[in-house]
């Protein structure tokens, strides 16, 4: 019985542990509060406040509990538990009773048996209890109880069976047993009464339930007092029936009664309210609990994000009667999460950008490398090729029969075509790689147009009228990169001539207002900056039309017209030849200068290529400066009004203009205004008038923006010009385009100047001269390097002079003529780059002024001012250590022709000498 009692008590224990015992937040003296720091009276207050904070409709809450599923089930649970407890106790007691009854019955039966035994002297049959035979449990109990409480005592009697003494003894012992049994029974009844009493103490379920509820409530308060949580219950119309709210701001503004019975929308205003209302409604309709994050933006509590949990509430008939909702403020978390997401996103974006960038860089590098290689290759091809062409040209000056001359002409024109192609490629790769720098020079647009037309007319093989028309408002003097503009014009004109068989080709210039494409573009100013123009100068936009009456361009071919290596059609390419690079270069050049190149065309009627470019107008006060530059021209110009002349025409003369298929002689064409009254002599594609020698050459010089080799060719070396006269000029024999473009590029790219001056100027005498031992100058300060180089040269069969630094090199060049200079870059006193610049300056100016300025000893140089060699470009090969400061670009930029990287090997030296010494 004791164990049973304990069991019962333990059950109660288990039940009560559902809530922490004695956590009654409201009682100041309970265990929980004692555990808090002593004297923390605030806590207590808070607890009180926390209770007050609760806004509960106390009348409705029990209602709610009674009517809703959840509420009733909770109560039912509690009741059930209590009932179970009681049932259990009752069952145990009942069992107890049964056992006792049985024992008594047994005892009685035994007594009876004794009597019967005595009477019948037979074995008493086992008395089988009839009660609850079917119950296993009971049987077990029975066994147990019997074992424990009654035992199976055997009555041992010494006397002989069936004697009087025997019976007497047996009766006595039985009596004793009976007494003991009665005594036990009494004790059990006592115990039963006791336990009944204890039962009574447990018999007040309401009290116990209240206790539990109180605990639960206390626990809830304990948990919820500081939780950022709003809980509530709303009815079907989403009117609040109950709300627990932690947020004091809400409480300050709205009282309980203002909330209860109202909907969200009635209470709050602002963002998120509608959404939450909709969400609640959705849950109510679907009947499924759900969670959602909603950001509120209300006047009441500002911007806050809540994670809201809403569940539908059913009554016992499974009808929806409203919702329970719980909201937890997660503003910070959301903010953090969003920040994290943003960071992650940024990271991803950055990574993507990085990889994109690396890709781009990679591609750019590849492209640059490819372009560099193309440029190098072109350069490599050009040098030997120009040798071939040059030699062929020299060959053409010798006595040849008709067939040989024809073959040679084909050879020269093919060679020229390849040269032109290579020049174009070089130009293009320069523009594309951004290497090309624009120069700002003053020039006269009228003259440029005139000269371009003159040049074109000089090599014209068709009966075409070339005309130039320049509007009056076009300034006489503008600033821009005249070389490039000339190149564009020449390209366009030769293109026009190529595709025009009759009629005319012309250039029209006029001033236009700033075009729309330029107004918003920084490119324009960039280009101007590149042009070296300052803002104080006024700028002017000039539109230039190059028109023809040629075959025209079909509309579908227009888009790819400016693409590289493209011509209007394959047929055209076959028929007219050309590289297909000219227009692409023009377009790139125009765009580089901040302009635009467009085309309009009608098939069989002609095409018009138009480019508009910004120029700076040289201010009038600059004019005095110009005087220096143009004084010669003013002095010598036979027709001073030429500079303002706005119309030129070059008409084909009637009669035979071709001399047995050979080159056209320049004086077949006369300008409309009789610009060149006497027979013209051709000079590298320019129509030059001997009588107008100085003026003309000056004009050319101005026009070319400082290109000075050309005039000197004539002034200093008349025999060279004579040579050309003998050969009837090389330019007329080929297309003007090739001539002028190669010329233009050679003017610009001094580092690549291989094509014209050197080969061009080489006379037969010089050819012979080169077959002799060439004179080489090695400029090198390192003894060991000199020794090694000497040995190599010896093996190659050359000798050379040695200069130990730049100054010695200049001295040596001044006093003797060399065919090749091998120049170390880094040297004491005067390094190779500077020395090369000074030598180039000498070649251009014919004096060593620059060298003197740089501090090179003047006396050594003065007496030998006019060297015979001065007009010729001396090939200077750099010997670089291949470091950054000695890069090939640096060498080219300083006027060197090529470079050998150190250490110099026999092979490298051999190749270099082979290339530059003929």
């Amino acid at each position: 019985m004791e164990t049973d009692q304990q069991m019962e008590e333990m059950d109660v224990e288990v039940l009560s542990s559902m809530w922490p015992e004695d956590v009654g937040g409201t009682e100041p003296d309970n265990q929980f509060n004692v555990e808090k720091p002593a004297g923390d009276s605030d806590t207590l207050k808070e607890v009180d406040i926390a209770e007050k904070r609760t806004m509960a409709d106390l009348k409705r809450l029990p209602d709610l509990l009674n009517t809703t599923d959840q509420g009733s089930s909770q109560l039912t649970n509690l009741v059930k538990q209590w009932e179970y407890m009681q049932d259990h106790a009752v069952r145990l007691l009942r069992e107890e009773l049964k056992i006792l009854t049985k024992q008594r019955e047994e005892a009685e039966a035994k007594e009876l048996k004794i009597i019967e035994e005595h009477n019948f002297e037979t074995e008493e049959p086992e008395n089988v209890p009839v009660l609850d035979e079917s119950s296993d449990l009971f049987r077990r109990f029975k066994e147990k109880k019997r074992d424990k409480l009654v035992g199976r005592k055997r009555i041992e009697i010494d006397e002989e069976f069936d004697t009087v003494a025997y019976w007497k003894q047996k009766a006595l012992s039985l009596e004793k047993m009976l007494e003991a049994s009665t005594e036990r029974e009494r004790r059990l009844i006592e115990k039963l009464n006791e336990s009944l009493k204890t039962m009574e103490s447990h018999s007040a379920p309401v009290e116990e339930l209240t206790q539990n509820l109180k605990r639960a409530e206390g626990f809830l308060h304990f948990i919820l007092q500081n939780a950022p949580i709003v809980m509530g219950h709303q009815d079907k119309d989403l009117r609040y029936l109950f709300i627990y709210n932690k947020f004091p701001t809400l409480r300050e503004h709205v009282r309980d009664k203002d909330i209860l019975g109202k909907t969200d929308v009635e209470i709050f205003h602002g963002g998120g309210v509608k959404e939450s209302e909709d969400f609640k409604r959705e849950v109510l309709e679907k009947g499924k609990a759900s969670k959602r994050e909603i950001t509120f933006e209300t006047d009441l509590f500002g911007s806050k994000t809540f994670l809201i949990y809403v569940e539908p509430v059913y009554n016992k008939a499974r009808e929806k009667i409203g919702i329970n909702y719980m909201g937890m403020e997660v503003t910070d978390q959301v903010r953090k999460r969003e920040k994290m997401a943003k960071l992650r996103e940024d990271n991803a974006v950055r990574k993507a950008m990085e990889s994109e960038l690396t890709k781009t860089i990679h591609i750019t590098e590849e492209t640059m490398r490819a372009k560099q290689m193309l440029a190098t290759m072109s350069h490599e091809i050009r040098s030997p090729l120009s040798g071939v062409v040059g030699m062929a040209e020299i060959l053409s000056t010798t006595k040849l029969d008709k067939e040989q001359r024809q073959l040679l002409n084909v050879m020269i024109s093919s060679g020229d075509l390849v040269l032109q192609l290579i020049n174009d490629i070089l130009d293009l790769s320069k523009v594309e790689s951004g290497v090309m720098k624009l120069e700002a020079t003053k020039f006269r647009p009228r003259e440029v147009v005139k000269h371009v037309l003159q040049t074109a007319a000089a090599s014209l093989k068709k009966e075409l009228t070339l005309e130039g028309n320049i509007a009056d408002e076009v300034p006489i003097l503008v600033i821009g990169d005249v070389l490039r503009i000339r190149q564009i014009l020449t390209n366009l004109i030769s293109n026009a001539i190529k595709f025009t068989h009759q009629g005319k080709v012309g250039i029209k210039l006029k001033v236009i207002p700033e075009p729309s494409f330029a107004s918003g573009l920084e490119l324009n100013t960039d280009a101007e900056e590149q042009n070296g123009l300052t803002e104080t100068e006024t700028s002017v936009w000039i539109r230039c039309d190059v028109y023809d009456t040629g075959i025209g361009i079909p509309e579908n071919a227009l888009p790819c017209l400016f693409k590289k290596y493209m011509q209007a059609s394959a047929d055209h390419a076959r028929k007219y030849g050309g590289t297909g690079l000219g227009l692409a270069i023009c377009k790139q050049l125009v765009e580089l200068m901040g302009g635009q190149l467009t085309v309009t065309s009608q098939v069989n009627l002609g095409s018009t290529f138009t480019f508009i470019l910004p120029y700076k107008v040289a201010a009038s006060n600059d004019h005095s400066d110009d005087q220096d530059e143009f004084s010669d021209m003013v002095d010598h110009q036979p027709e001073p009004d030429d500079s303002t002349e706005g119309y030129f025409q070059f008409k084909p003369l009637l009669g035979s203009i071709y001399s047995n298929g050979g080159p056209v002689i320049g004086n077949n064409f006369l300008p409309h205004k009789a610009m060149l009254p006497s027979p013209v002599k051709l000079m590298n594609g320019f129509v030059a008038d001997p009588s107008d020698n100085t003026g003309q050459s000056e004009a050319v010089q101005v026009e070319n923006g400082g290109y000075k080799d050309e005039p000197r060719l004539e002034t200093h070396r008349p025999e060279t010009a004579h040579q050309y006269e003998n050969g009837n000029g090389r330019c007329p024999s080929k297309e003007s385009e090739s001539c002028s473009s190669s010329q233009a590029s050679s003017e610009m790219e001094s580092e690549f100047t291989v094509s014209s001056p050197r080969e061009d100027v080489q006379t037969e005498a010089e050819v012979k001269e080169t077959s002799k031992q060439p004179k080489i100058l090695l400029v090198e300060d390192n003894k060991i390097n000199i020794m090694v180089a000497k040995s190599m040269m010896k093996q190659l069969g050359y000798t050379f002079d040695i200069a130990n630094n730049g100054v010695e090199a200049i001295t040596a060049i001044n006093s003797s003529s060399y065919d090749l200079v091998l120049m170390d870059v880094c040297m004491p006193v005067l390094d190779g780059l500077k020395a090369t610049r000074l030598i180039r300056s000498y070649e251009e100016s014919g004096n060593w002024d620059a060298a003197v300025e740089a501090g090179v000893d003047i006396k050594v140089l003065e007496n030998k001012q006019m060297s015979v060699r001065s007009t010729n470009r001396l090939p200077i090969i750099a010997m670089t250590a291949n470091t950054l400061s000695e890069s090939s670009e640096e060498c080219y930029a300083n006027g060197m022709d090529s470079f050998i990287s150190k250490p110099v090997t026999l092979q490298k030296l051999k190749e270099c000498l082979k290339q530059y010494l003929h």
Partner: protein
Amino acid sequence: MNTVVAQLQRQFQDYLVSLYQQGFLDNQFTELRKLQDEGTPDFVAEVVSLFFDDCSKLINSMSRSLERPENVDFKQVDSGVHQLKGSSSSVGARRVKNVCISFKECCDVQNREGCLRCLQQVDYEYKMLKTKLQDLFNLEQQIVQAGGAIPQVNIN
């Protein structure tokens, strides 16, 4: 006698190859050897000895420049290093050249400590190379004296 020559020749070959393999020499040295012919049988030795003389002079002058901790004339040191680099590159003294490259870097940032370290290294390297090459030339001479020809050695 032939066996002696053959042995010497093999020794010479192995030694030369080892000099390349250990990085003392590079292809430029091969170039130098190519330049040597009947007309100039001692060309390599001459160049190399000139180089070593140069080395010792330059190293002396540089060590003087670097002697005092203050007011180091780095420009002068730099020119010395440049000379040395050019020379070593020309004769194919690879290790010397490599030290010169880092020497020059130290010089560019005016790092005296680094310069001194490099100077020591250069000194060590060139002396090392000197003894190695002396051995090589000795071998050469022995071959010639034994009546053999200097074998062609194909490096790579």
